[in-house]
């Protein structure tokens, strides 16, 4: 259970939530634009893909309204950390394939990567505020996804951006739920990991 809210804690939480919400909204808009660019520049069909991509966290969730605050933070953090790694990989793959047409795409990917990192930071800060342990990153994540063919890379990239666009809406909604509740832990017991 979280420590009793001091005024400064409540203020900090509110500040983190509102900044995170704004960031999620901007991120959503930028990812949607990036998706259009990506589909066009990679020569993909807009209806391509659709199947879940290995290693890409799925935003789909059942009983979303029943989730606890702590659960929301932990699931979001795990997802955005995964996206951080996936986007970094996409960026690296883009640079290997660097062409004039792709330079703008690379910049857009880098911008979204920054937003994802910033959102992950907000989530970590919110978890810290609730005296919850922040799950460790090093070595805890799944192994890096296999090296794919160029076509496979494109489809994986499409899957990454599509799910990230969903997570941006979910993340914003989650932070609004947290802000509404006024506490980030709900009735969850146990921490997300060791301090």
């Amino acid at each position, binding site marked *: 259970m979280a420590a009793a809210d001091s005024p400064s804690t409540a203020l900090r939480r509110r500040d983190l939530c509102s900044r995170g919400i704004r960031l999620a909204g901007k991120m959503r*808009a930028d990812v949607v634009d990036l998706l259009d660019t990506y589909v066009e520049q990679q020569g993909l069909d807009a209806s391509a893909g659709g199947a879940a991509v290995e290693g890409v966290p799925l935003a789909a969730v059942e009983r*979303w*309204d029943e989730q606890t605050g702590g659960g929301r933070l932990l699931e979001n953090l795990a997802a955005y950390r995964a996206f951080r790694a996936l986007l970094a990989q996409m960026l690296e793959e883009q640079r290997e394939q660097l062409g004039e047409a792709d330079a703008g795409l690379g910049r857009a990917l880098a911008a979204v990567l920054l937003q994802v990192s910033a959102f992950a930071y907000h989530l970590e800060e919110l978890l810290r505020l609730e005296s919850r342990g922040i799950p460790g990153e090093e070595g805890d994540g799944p192994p890096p996804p296999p090296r794919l063919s160029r076509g496979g890379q494109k489809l994986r990239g499409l899957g990454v951006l599509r799910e990230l666009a*969903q997570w*941006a809406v979910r993340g914003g909604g989650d932070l*609004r739920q947290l802000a*509404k509740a006024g506490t980030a832990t709900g009735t969850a017991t146990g921490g997300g990991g060791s301090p």
Partner: protein
Amino acid sequence: DSHIQYERVGADVTMKCGSMDWDAAVTWTANGTDIDESHLNGSYLILKNVDLSQSGQYSCYEGSSWHLKYQTSLRVGTPPKEPVLMCRSNNYPKGFYCSWHLPTPTYIPNTFNISVIHGTKDMVCEKDAVLKNRCHIRYLQLFSTVKYKVTLTVTNALGKNFTTLTFDEFAIVKPDPPESVVAKPVPNNPRRLEVSWQNPSSWPDPESFPLKFFLRYRPLILDQWQHVELSDGTSHTITDAYAGKEYIIQVAAKDNDIGTWSDWSVAVHATPWTEEPKHLTTEAQITETTSASTSSFMAPPTTKICDKGAVVGSGAVAVCWTAGLVVAAYSVLFI
């Protein structure tokens, strides 16, 4: 025995008089009226190229005994064309509804069957309590990239048809228009109108999924709208209204992140505050009036910088610098 018989418009219909032989003497009636023998082939009734007006009750009587030998209700109609299907979420994140209709009537009874599939999962579409061409689906999952596939099949006695819609969860989100739109003049401000509204009551959780709004307004005398997009709040003050002109104002809503804009709200009308009309005075004289007086020229209401007290009863020229504005206001009148 009484039957129902469905036939297509334009078809040729042959009715047999029950078990009567072909050469039996019979009388056919349509809705109680005898049918001319020219339509008979023996005891068979022949209706060629039937049209809608020939729907009705057909009866066949034995010639001499006038016993009823056969009766059928003929319903002339058409097989269904491809139905029109629409799905929309006006109550995200609770669920969505689908509604449908036929582009042209069939004139005979139709049954509609709808299936909703999310990935591999069949979903239940609950009938609307009031509208028989609508049903509701509850979201079991949110934020899914898996598309929904809705298939509507319409069947009647003459044929069947269907249509399919495939869509993303976010794509069909469209709130209802804002409610309770109110526009009021602002006292002592001839160019302002205060507009307020409420979230549509069907939007279940505006705290988690806030709406943004689009306001449009124009004076009735002009065709061009002014637009303002508002990312939060449910009120706005228009500050550039033409003085004295009646305005029409509407508001639309959209989720901050997903879906499309609602339809425009019901239009409201308002006119900015105007000062009580005053007579323009000339250099020749200023008459202190305590009762209504006639004047050949009435100044239109407009913002005045000069002190009202200096105008009345001063005996001096009281021409406000807003005369230019007065001219401008009159120009608007003649647009």
